[in-house]
Every structure is written in C-alpha cells, then in structure tokens.
C-alpha cells in the first residue's frame, strides 16, 4: 500500500517536472490581439475578405498586415474597432457597395429561345446557347444568385430578373462571381447611372434580340463629359461600360441613349450610403446562410 503511494507520488513528481519544463521551453507565443480582433469580427465566416473565415482574417490583420477594413459585411464599425485594437487610425468613412444588374431583358423586352426543363440553375442553362432567353448574354433568370446570396439580399422578381435589396446587400460579391453571364457588378451605392445591358451583338442583330439592347453605337461614349464610358471589346462584340471611378451621375448618357439601355436610378439618401452596422446574417452562424450550409 505504502509502496504504491510512494511510486505514484514519485511518478507524479517526475511527470510534473517534465511538464513544467516543457511548458516553458515549448511555449507558442500567441498575440492576444488575434483573439480580440476575432471577437469584434461578425463571425459569419462569409469569406468575402478573401481569407479563410473570420479567424483567418484576424490572424492576417495582426500578423500579416492585412487591411483593417478587409471585412466586407462588418463595414465601418468593425474597421473602427479593429483600428482601436491595433492602435491605428480607422480608414475614412467609405461608401458602401451593392450589386447592380447589367440587364433589362424582361419578358416584355426579349423573347424566349427555348423552353428550359430540368434543374433550375443558371450554370446548367448557360451551356445551352447561353440560356433559354433569346439574348445569349442576358440574365437567365433561374436564380443562381438568389441561391448563393448569404444575406438573402437578391431575389428573382416578377419579370424574371433579380432584384437587389440594397438595404440587405453588403457587397460581398459572391453573386457577381457566381453569375455565369457576369452581369452582376459590385458598385458604390451612390452611383445612379447604370448600363442595363450586356449584349455584345452589333446593330440589327442586337436590335432583334431585345427592345432595350445596347447596339454599341457609341453615342454615350462621345457625349460623356467625364470620358467615363467605353465600349468593352470582346471576341463576341462590344458593349458600353461605365468606369464608376469617373462617373458623376450627370445623366447626359441616359438622355442620349437611343435604345434606353442606360438607366438613371433615383438618388439615395446620403445617410444610407455610409457603411453602417451590419445586419446579422440569416441561417446558422457557422456558415452564414442556409443556402450554402453543408449541415442544414
């Protein structure tokens, strides 16, 4: 009995000593700021910053010098809090960005090419002649953007085109990346002028395709006082695109466009353009949303 107690006590002493030495010698230095930064990030793990989840971004900000405003859904508030932790000045208040659709090919403006049957996903339809719409370049309208949006901010409207809920959209860009037609773009919310067309055909063919198609006439390019509009050339043809850095939303191109394919949106209340506190993402917090969640 005593023998056993002594043996165990001696063993305990030896192991304790080894562990004490090991904890000093093999200690891994962690920066306490990583945990602090992680605690102020939204925890949605949406990946919009380009790092693997919020923990990845926290580590990158503290150790690798990633920008403190990299968190897209966290916006200004989170950037300020991170700045306080890191002892930096927060970046000036930025205008928040939302998704804009470069297509107006509603049922009224274009016609169907064929009847699509099968799994409702734009990626499948696009491989068949650019989708069931008569325009090879326009919105397919099967709602892949709606399925992938982690913030429930984009929905297919009555006219089969997606409608962006600008109050919910955080400009993470997942829909823009996933769109097989590449007709969604992340744009500052205070920009009012948008080309609502992606058709690359020339003249008559473009006119036949859709009532409101861009025919690459170049009138907008010539009339823009800021030189903000160019014709984007591609293998298939060209389409007018706006450089949002230069655009002042003057609206001259909107008035000049013979095809009414450039639109002027109503102005936005300046209060709403500033990055505010992010909304809580829907669905399970670990994966941001039901639609992309692997578990639910």
């Amino acid at each position, binding site marked *: 009995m005593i023998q056993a107690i002594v043996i165990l006590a001696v063993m305990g002493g030896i192991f304790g000593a080894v562990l004490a030495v090991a904890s000093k010698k093999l200690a891994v230095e962690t920066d306490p700021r990583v945990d602090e930064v992680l605690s102020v990030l939204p925890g949605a793990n949406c990946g919009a910053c380009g790092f693997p989840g919020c923990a990845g971004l926290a580590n990158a900000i503290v150790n690798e010098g990633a920008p403190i405003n990299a968190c897209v859904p966290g916006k200004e508030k989170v950037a300020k809090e991170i700045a306080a932790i890191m002892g930096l000045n927060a970046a000036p208040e930025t205008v928040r960005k939302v998704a804009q659709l470069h297509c107006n090919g509603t049922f009224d403006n274009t016609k169907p090419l064929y009847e699509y049957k099968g*799994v409702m996903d734009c990626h499948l339809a696009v491989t068949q*002649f650019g989708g069931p719409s008569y325009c090879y370049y326009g919105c397919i309208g099967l709602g892949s953007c709606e399925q992938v949006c982690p913030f429930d901010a984009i929905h297919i409207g009555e006219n089969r085109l997606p409608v962006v809920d600008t109050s919910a959209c955080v400009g993470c860009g997942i829909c823009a990346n996933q769109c097989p*037609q590449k007709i969604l773009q992340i744009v500052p919310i205070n920009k009012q002028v948008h080309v609502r067309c992606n058709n690359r055909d020339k003249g008559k063919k473009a006119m036949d395709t859709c009532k409101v198609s861009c025919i690459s006439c170049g009138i907008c390019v010539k009339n823009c006082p800021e030189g903000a509009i160019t014709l984007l050339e591609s293998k298939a043809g060209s389409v007018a695109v706006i450089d949002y850095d230069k655009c002042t939303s003057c609206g001259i191109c909107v008035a000049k466009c013979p095809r009414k394919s450039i639109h002027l949106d109503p102005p936005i209340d300046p209060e709403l353009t500033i990055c505010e506190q992010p909304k809580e993402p829907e669905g399970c917090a670990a994966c941001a949303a039901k639609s992309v969640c692997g578990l639910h």
Partner: protein
Amino acid sequence: MNYEKRTFSGGTHIQDFKEFTNSLETQEAKAPAKVYIPMSMHIGAPSKPLVAVGDLVKMGQKIGESQGFVSVPAHASVSGKVIGFKQLPVPNGRMADCVVIENDFKDEWLEGLIQPEQNPQALDAKEIGARVLEAGIVGMGGATFPSHVKYAPSKEGKKADHIILNGIECEPFLTADHRIMLERPERIIAGLKYMMKLADCPKGVIAIEENKMDAFELMIRLTEQDSTIETIVCKEKYPQGSEKQLINAVTGREVPPGGLPMDVNVIVNNVGTAAAVADAVEFRRPLIDRIVTLNGNGIVRPMNYRVRIGTLYKDLIEENGEVIGDIVKVISGGPMMGFAVYTMEIPVMKGTSGILVFNEESQVLKREEEGPCVRCARCVDACPMGLEPTTIVKAAKRRDWAKTKACDVTSCIECGSCAYVCPSMIPLVHYIRLAKQYVTSKDGNGAVNPFLV
C-alpha cells in the same frame, strides 16, 4: 449456336425501340440545295476555312484545314459554289461557323479521289495514318474524337494489344451501326485490318450486342477464317457501348479514373469509323456523308438515311414527309445521351448518329415532377462506374462541391442510367453535371457563358 455473352457490372436494361428501323435498308438521302458545313465537327481546335465566297468547289474538296494536332480537315459534301459563311447552332449548345455551299447537283468528285488504290496492302502505317487524317475521320459513334490521334504513338511508348470495334449501339432507337454492319460488313473488316496495321496491333475484336444477332452471325461467318479477328457478343444492357464498359466486358481490364483506353493498351473505334477508314485508305474518299437514323413518333417513315454532312435536319425531315402532330422535342443522337435542340436548322455533322423527333403524345419523354429521394439505392446498383449517384446529388443540392469531388463525381460518364431507374424521377445527371462544373472550373464558380470567353 451458343456464344458466351460478355458484359460489365451495373447498368440497366432499357426498352430499345429498334424494331422500327432495324430491318429497313439504308436509303440515300437527296443532296439538299444548300449545305452548311461546320468548321468544328470534332473535339479539338476548329478547322480554318480555305475557301472564299464565290469559289467553285468539287465534292470531297478540302474546305477547312486542321488547326493543330487534335483537329481534322473538313470537306465539301456537294459540288457547287461557296455562297457565304453563317453561324449556326450545333447540338452541343454552341454556335459554329459554317461554310455555305450551293449545290449544282452535278456531284463531281475532285480529281484524284475515288480512284481505287492498286495495291492497298502494300501501304505502310505512315501512309495509312496520313490518309486517315486527310480524309477528316473522327469517331462516328458520337464523341467525334479525331481518329488519327488515337493511333498516334503515345508518349509513354504504350502499344495497343487490342483494337475493339464498337458495334454495340446501346442507345434506344438508333440502328445506324446495325445497318452498316449488315450492309457493308466487308468494309468494316477491311477498315479494322488497316487500323491494326496502323497501330501495329496483333488482335482485332468486333463487339456486337445480342439484340443484333443477324449482324453478329454475319460477322462470325466473314471472320472465321481469320485468326487475328475475333467477333464477340455482349449482353443487351445499357451502357454496354460506352468505351470503358466495353473494354471491361471484352478484356476484363479497367481504365483508371481520368485515363484513356490506351492506358490499358486498348483502342476502341466505332464500326462506322472502320468503314470510313477503309474508304479513306483504299479510295482516298473523305468523310462527306454518314448514316443517320431518323425516328421518333413525329416521323412518318422511320428510316436510316445516308446523309451528306451539312444537310439541315429540316431538309432531311422534309424529304421523309410531313411530321406528325405538334413537335415538342427534337433530339440529336440517342434519347439517353443525345442533345435536345431547339431548332431544325442544325446541320448534320460527323457525329450525328440519329435525329429523333417526338410529338406531345410520346410516352418516351413522359417525366413526372421530381420527388424526394426514397433511399432505394437503385441508382447505385445501376451506375456502371461504381459511383453513388444519390450521395453525389444530395451533396450537390446543398452545394457542397468538396463532398461531390470526394465522391469522385468527375468519373461520371453521364450515361443516364441512374436517372432512368430513379423511381422519384430525380434528374440525377443534371445535378451531377452542375457538380462537375463547380469541381472542374478554375475559380470554383461554375460554368461561364461560352459566348463570353
């Protein structure tokens, strides 16, 4: 006589609907007033047009030059005048640049073609290979892979020890291969001989499905004197005619995932390709026509036609007669793996094995709404590749692409057996295609409009 019937594991039995056309002799289709010859009728780089508007061309004249190694030339299928270039839709969902030729109905061959070679047996492998390329021959089963590429020396120095001629034709409705085996068997055997010489391969196998016993018995009779050629019969099962399944049935070998038949020292070609090779080698005849099965309940007289490449579906169907009822679906190829097309203004290409026209009364196309998976695992039993379609599709539905990759979704041959047997009518292949797009796309964002890139 009793023969051993070979097969693979998995697969499913499908009603074959071949009785409409398999006993009717192939008819020569009228050459149309205009042909539209696509510059990309094959897998690989499109051909480059060699003619200009206004040029006069003869039958068999090369009008498109091959670009690169995996590419073949295109030839005029009628004599006449080039009147323009036009973009036409092709069944794979893209547009192809076509050379439009107005037919003068003289059918004049280009000089030097269609002259029998005096001593074809004396030709060496290099010359045979050159003639196969020059004739623009591609796999005529439907995949349209350029044939000369299959016979080019492999980088690892692999040599084929079996050349399998695929006379299975497991797609329902199609009988084009069946008819060519009955009508031109000696050309097929001659073509196989040239292929064996080209690949320096000691053994040729002609594989035929058991629902074509007449063709099988004919082939047996014609090859029994020849010890290098074996004719075998395979069970009637879908997809017996798929390359990997056929290799497995004939040789017992398994092509590794992502591999080619050459990895297991086998070359597979369609019987139609063999006949075209024989014509190319002995007569320098380019591939300017092919046998097409015209069938479906919208067609008055289901029939096999020998059709000039570049004939519009519309012209061929018009020649056959008025269509019956309201046409709701036109399929290029077979009903299992063919492509639904939205217009009849599509040219017949080198890989067009059939055109199926269905009206709204068709029972073949009836498909109910997708229901929930009942976990019966019939798709798992049916999968000829040994995959678990149900697991892949469940992962695809929740957009878990990493899981679909782990389930080896890229090995799927999209034969459609799983969707055919599914009692819940789940379009499994459709979901699998979506998963494949995400797994194989470079940025992980799925497919991008082919017109944009």
